[in-house]
């Protein structure tokens, strides 16, 4: 009985440690561009698309380039590995996941946060009168 408990406890502890390790590893922390430049880890930066700056889509290499302003108001060129994300134009904010490489932010993924369109808003109620 005792041996069983010990074995069971070891299994549980190892399992939890494994999960905790994976958790820490795959948990991508938030940072601003300054912090992202310092660390060489993958981070996620929240900010907004600078519409005044040009965007570019490289059809051959499938890379989408745009300028993004982080929450500390620093503007950095972001190169996304992929095409323009869904609902990019209407997003209120974007989150770029990736690393800083030589003055640019190389993103593997850009999430867009949209105004919840299908939540009734005072503007839409006026339109449907």
């Amino acid at each position, binding site marked *: 009985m005792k041996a069983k408990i010990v074995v069971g406890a070891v299994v549980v502890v190892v399992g939890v440690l494994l999960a905790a390790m994976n958790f820490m590893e795959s948990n991508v922390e938030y940072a601003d561009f300054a912090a992202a430049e310092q660390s060489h880890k993958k981070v996620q930066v929240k900010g907004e698309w600078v519409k005044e700056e040009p965007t570019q889509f490289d059809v051959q290499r499938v890379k989408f380039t745009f300028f993004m302003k982080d929450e500390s108001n620093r503007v950095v060129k972001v190169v996304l590995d992929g095409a323009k994300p869904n609902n990019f134009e209407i997003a209120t904010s974007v989150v770029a996941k990736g690393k800083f490489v030589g003055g640019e932010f190389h993103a593997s993924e850009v999430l867009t946060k949209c105004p919840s369109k299908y939540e009734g808003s005072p503007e839409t109620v006026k339109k449907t*009168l």
Partner: protein
Amino acid sequence: MVLMGTLGSILATVAFAAALAAAFLYYHTFLTPAERMLAAARICYQVATGSLVAVAAIFLYLILTHQFQYTYVWQYSSTDLSLPLLVSTFYAGQEGSFMLWALYTSFIGIFLMVYTSRRDYENATMSVYSLILSFLLLMLVVKNPFTMIWDSFPAELVKSGPIPPGFDNIVILDAARSIWAQFPTEGSGLNPLLQNYWMVIHPQILFSGFSAMAVPYTLAVAALMKRDYDSWIRIATPWAVFGSMVLGTGIIMGGYWAYETLGWGGFWGWDPVENSSLIPWLLCVASIHSALNQRKTGGFVRTNIVFSLLTFVTVLYSTFLTRSGILGDTSVHSFVDPGMWVYWLLLGCLGLFTLLGFGLLVFRLPEMPTAPAKHSYFSREFALFLGAFALSFVALFVMIGTSSPIITTILNGKASAVEISYYVRTNLPLGIIICLLSGIGQLLWWRRSQAETFVRSLTLPITLSLLTTAVVYGVLGSSEVLILLFTFCAAFSLVVNAKIGSEVFKGNPKFVGGSLAHVGIAVMCLGFVTSSRYDSTATLALERGTPVESMGYQLTYLGYEELDSERYAFNVQVRHGGVSKTVAPVMRFSKKDNSTMRHPDIINFLSRDFYVAPVSVESDADQPVSHTLNRGKSEQIGGVTVTFRDFEFPESERASMSEGKPFFIDADVRVQEAGRSDQLKLRMKNGPQGAEFLPATYTSKSGEQYVFVMTQMMPAQTDPSASAIAIDVVLPHDHSAHKKDDTLIIEASIKPMINLVWAGTVTLIVGFLLTIIRRIGEASRDGARLESGD
């Protein structure tokens, strides 16, 4: 119409009160049995169900008749929806989906009442179950689905003073003070992503499953109340299997929906919404396995109660995670903040039912029988025990991952979600163990745990599994050890269960459910590996008419088709091995808010899916087009005709030039379209910084803007008529008017053997179904024995 809503709200309150009364009366009957009290409790439960049905009927009526003076109806529906979709708006929002959940819970309760009354379990069971129902109904009382729209938007809709004539969408709120409100005549519509036949069926099945998950919990609490730690497990098993089947079906359907229409690229994205239904399902399946142990050995009493309690507690926890708004910005789903009331009610509900179940368990622990733990490590029971624990560990790891925004808020002060890789890395080893156990456990059961025959029976499965693994390795190619191990174990489980299943089937077909369910899971696991580990994906830019080779397929973008004013189908010809098929992924460019919605299209080959998800269409509109204009010759650019007439270099400017001062030269350009023409001056300005070309804009009749800029001047000194200019033209930007030379960007992927996932699912469901039939028969025999005083 305002009356209908008021009636609905009142009936919802009645239903809540009746359910609460039923809980009290049943509990009273449980403490001191009395026929009349029991009859009253039953009536209360039926009143609750009846009132709820009436509430739902009113709600549905308001939706079907487009009563947009109700906020919910206005917010989620519109007059242009088809009937099935209109009906589905019933559960498109928070309030409606809680109503659906409560409705199914109340229906299941009627069956549960009849079922438990025959097994002397009604009082305790229904007291707990009615309490659960009353909490779901309380949600409807707190978050009223019948809120009037002018109460939601008073600033926009409520007005005072004389009522303007000629409006029929006006309601008088206070005649004495002449206060009135205007209400919408059209709804804001159902989210286009949900406008799909899956919306009609998937949520219904999912919520039936959620409702069914309450039953094992209820029966476990009832068992604790009754101090019956043995027979309850037989009573509860058919319900646990039923719940697993329904919820499992709902989960896979959601996966198929995401794969086929939402274009997530796969059937599983480890999204909080998906995870939140997976966690209770895993625990329920674990409880089914652990229950088998108790039937055989009489042990695992506490374990089984814990599993059954957790099944529903995790339903509540998941609901809290996905409905309270606590996950906030960390997922692709946007979780709406439903308000403080709902947040605390959900949290309270979770706390109450956790405390009720586990509190009672702790209270009863000292008197609970402890099992004589003398089974060997080399037994089916031990395999079942390990399997159930591995399943609950999967549930735990998924739960930790899903809760990561909460955990990181506590640790770092800022919410962030884990990456998908977390789920794969933590669950893969467990998947290997589970597959292996589901094979070994079955073998031990069938071979009666004799070492010699057991080892001998391993030969065939191991040979076949090695062969399968070799094929997967050889054909698809991978060196990931864990993946190959997973493949091996899944194949092992498949072979063993298929073999035993066929032998069981010869003996008694009714008993084949377990083996069949395992075969289903094993086939699904193989499908997971082949379709999501050996898939290949490429993002391709397809110029119209130009074939592109990728992954052994030749793709040609043929052109688009206008489905309606917002939706466009993009036809892509796919050639592979002499076969040619056309896929038509769809993009929807919303005029309302400029958003783009993308729907993939799939070619289903027997051995793989070819999956095409549209990304964007790049017309060359944004890129300037270069043209050389010879003097006097007209050129067609976009929708206009452009002619370079001559340079204009006035005397004053010539003078400035010769003095070395800034000067300019204009190119006189005529822009023409049907019935309209305009002169543009494309100017070259020369100053201290050198030459600068200034853009000029032409606005067409239809309001489209062309931007012209000269890039080069080529005057011919000897023959002025041979002069030319080079210009860049930015054509009007227009989403819907795609140019001939447009380029379609797609994400194409090959999903090998994805049909295994669907085939496995169907097998699993049939397995569950057979098991339910068998276990109900068993529970009925128990019930009959009980009634006859055996």
